[in-house]
């Protein structure tokens, strides 16, 4: 088995300040970036902060920027780099640094709590749901999401624009709204709040989120664009508008959850 030295250029620091520090670390055939970080911890930098969990691409913990690209460290093979090429590892940029490669992703958990939850018909008892595979497949694609938040990190609406964070939930949570909207057993209507409270309109479908998704979910094509179409149907259709004005079709939108930061 061939063993070589890799040069890692790792961002070390905390919320205050930090700098890139160079390390030479042994690397073996077949290894991924996270292996090298573990070896670095074990041999040279025991206190290097790296968030990880499953090391199998299933939990979405080890998100970082590898040579500037948002990626999972556990799914980035060392063989994708030129031998001898320094590999620069920095924390994901959109969220505040806690320490080294670990960031504070609490923004995402706050947004998750603002979206009205799954709302089934109360008349259907557990065990009585009947859904066809073709109907659940759309939401199932979005439920593959491992919440690595790479899409949140790369989205230009909030990357370098913290002022938009209040009004924009980010691709992951706009996709969550789409998932609930397309759930065959859900009865709530989140179309108006998708636009008004969660900022669907900010998305101008540049597909950066789709490009970085480690689960290859077609976030833009399958979640965001169809959601935009549904919102247009709800908010801007003149007949729907007229109906709501003359009281024939009163609003049935699910209100945003109380406590939402507005």
């Amino acid at each position, binding site marked *: 088995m061939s063993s070589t030295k890799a040069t890692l250029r790792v961002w070390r620091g905390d919320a205050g300040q930090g700098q890139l520090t160079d390390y030479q670390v042994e690397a073996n055939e*077949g290894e991924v970036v996270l292996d090298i970080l573990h070896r670095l911890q074990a041999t040279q930098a025991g206190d290097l902060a790296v968030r990880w969990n499953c090391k199998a691409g299933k939990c979405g913990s080890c998100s970082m920027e590898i040579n500037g690209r948002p990626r999972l460290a556990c799914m980035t093979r060392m063989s994708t780099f030129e031998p001898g090429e320094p590999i620069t590892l920095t924390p994901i940029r959109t969220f505040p640094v806690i320490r080294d490669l670990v960031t504070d992703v609490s923004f995402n958990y706050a947004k998750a709590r603002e979206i009205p939850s799954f709302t089934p018909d109360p008349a259907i008892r557990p065990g009585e749901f009947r859904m066809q595979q073709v109907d659940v497949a759309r939401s199932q694609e979005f439920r593959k999401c491992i919440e690595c938040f790479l899409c949140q990190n790369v989205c230009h609406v909030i990357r370098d624009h913290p002022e938009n964070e209040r009004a924009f939930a980010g691709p992951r949570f706009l996709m969550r709204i789409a998932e609930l909207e397309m759930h065959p057993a859900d009865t709530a209507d989140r179309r108006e709040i998708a636009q008004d409270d969660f900022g669907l309109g900010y998305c101008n479908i540049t597909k950066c989120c789709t490009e970085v998704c480690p689960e290859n979910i077609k976030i833009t094509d399958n979640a965001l664009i169809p959601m935009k179409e549904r919102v247009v149907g709800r908010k801007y259709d003149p007949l729907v508008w007229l109906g709501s004005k003359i009281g024939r079709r009163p609003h049935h939108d699910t209100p945003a959850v109380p406590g939402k930061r507005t």
Partner: protein
Amino acid sequence: MSEISRLSYDVVVIGAGGSGLRAAIEARQAGKKTAVISKSLFGKAHTVMAEGGCAAAMGNVNPNDNWKVHFRDTMRGGKFLNNWRMAELHAQESPDRVWELEAWGALFDRTPDGKISQRNFGGHAYPRLAHVGDRTGLEMIRTLQQKVVALQQEDARERGDPEAMIKIFAETTITRLITDGGRIAGAFGYLRDTGALVLFEAPAVILATGGIGKTFKYTSNSWEYTGDGHALALLAGATLMNMEFVQFHPTHMVWPLSVRGLLVTESVRGDGGVLRNSEGKRFMFNYVPDVFRAQYAETEEEADRWYTDPDHNRRPPELLPRDEVARANNAEVKAGRGSPHGGVFLDIASRRPAEEILRRLPSMYHQFKELADVDITKEPMEVGPAQHYVMGGVEVDPDTAVSQLPGLFAAGEVSGGMHGSNRLGGNSLSDLLVFGRRAGLGAAAYLDSLAARPVVGDAEAAAAVAEAEAPLERAAGENPYTVHAELQQTMSDLVGIIRREDEIKTALTELEGLRARVAQVKAEGGRAYNPGWHLALDLRNVVLIAECVAQAALERQESRGGHTRDDFPEMSPEWRKVNLICSLDGDRVTLRRQPMPPMRADLMALFDRDELAKYYTKEELPAADPAPAEETK
């Protein structure tokens, strides 16, 4: 002494995987103020890695299935060492727990008539595993996570604070349970991001910390699996049972080395995949043990017919319980018929169309493609056994999940008894739900019966602080990563899949030395998000639990399920009557034998006498000519 924040809760759930979240939901729904402690971020716990499915006898695919069949399969899989009451509750309640998830938003794969689809798995007589492709664990944890959020939204509406009744403490680790007069009074720990110390004052603690994988070198388990709950229970005065039973799942990636131990789901075999050796031979036909001979096919033709006509053919031997398949894989490699990287071949490419493989096993396709450059629709996978699960755990009451220590509950992998000597695939996710819920109910009932809240004494709190800070404050000491790696090597080499008396004794001697070294490790750096410090504290648990496993493995002189003794290869009916109980005497691990309570007659009557005779002593068997085993509900 460093400053500690004191927080008051009714219930503290340690662990935020399937069992922890299910327990927390139940406790909150019973009106108890609940804290959930998670070593990782919310929604990242080890449950996300579960692939194949959640076993529940809903009978959606084969209407002959019911709880009695599931109960029988579970007892057989565990070689009748299971706590039969737990196996009974589990088989009876799993369907309701799965349906409940659906009502909370889970989207399982469907049957043509719109019900939850169910797939075949090792040791299960009928297609029984509710699943979502090969990412079932992710669906479960996300559903439970979203149910917690839904409850928090309710609390925001009704109480003005989403965290009024249930709060997640993400990236928080508990290092000590604190007792008062022989009952639980609280839990002490630290927040990973800042290193701040925190004391939870709570009369009820539910352990839901999962397993002990990081005791071994090659494991499918995540870093969190350092036996925390097992060790916390032991240190607080509770007991562990049957710690010798460690599951080595038969199919993990063996190459590249960096991903050695990464799980390859049993669904590959459930969906038609077969194991072959370097000669291309389907070798599992040579490894069907006597106790299972009647239920498994003897020819490839019969085995292949079973997939489409299970009522008239016997099951392929690739679907034997995991312990049998793991030993077979191990034996083929030892006999020199292994794959180039020391595994065996798992072949689905020649058995199913590429389109079907991609649809049913998307994560496996992705995993092999990304990490090993192997296209599983075109070539076989190289696989081998690795540590996957521990059947042993905290000794609990089956109905309420309470341990031997009042106020301390345990559910999921950290609890013992349910799976006997070997767990069937799919029975873990259902275990989490059934006993997570029961632990939540048990804790709520315990709180209602409590006259006065126990109190956390200052001395105990101070001792916990000193212990947690020690690795940071030591002037010098060993590197925790080095000690951990040596410990894992020792356990894998000497108390692994095949065990012998002399090797286990060597391990125990080495562990004594390692325990002394663990007590002297030094963490460099500060308190904020310092993985070296975190590992230094986790190591106390790893080495303590390793000793429990080794001691129990030495004591049990037979081979059964997840405990294989080269020097005692037979399964012994006498040993089936024995549970091995670990406790702490001062800082010494002690072991005692405890008789297994006899199975209730109505459950015993579900088995043929001939089958029971393979496991039980003559004296234990029911009188001859019993009523025939009942097949329907």
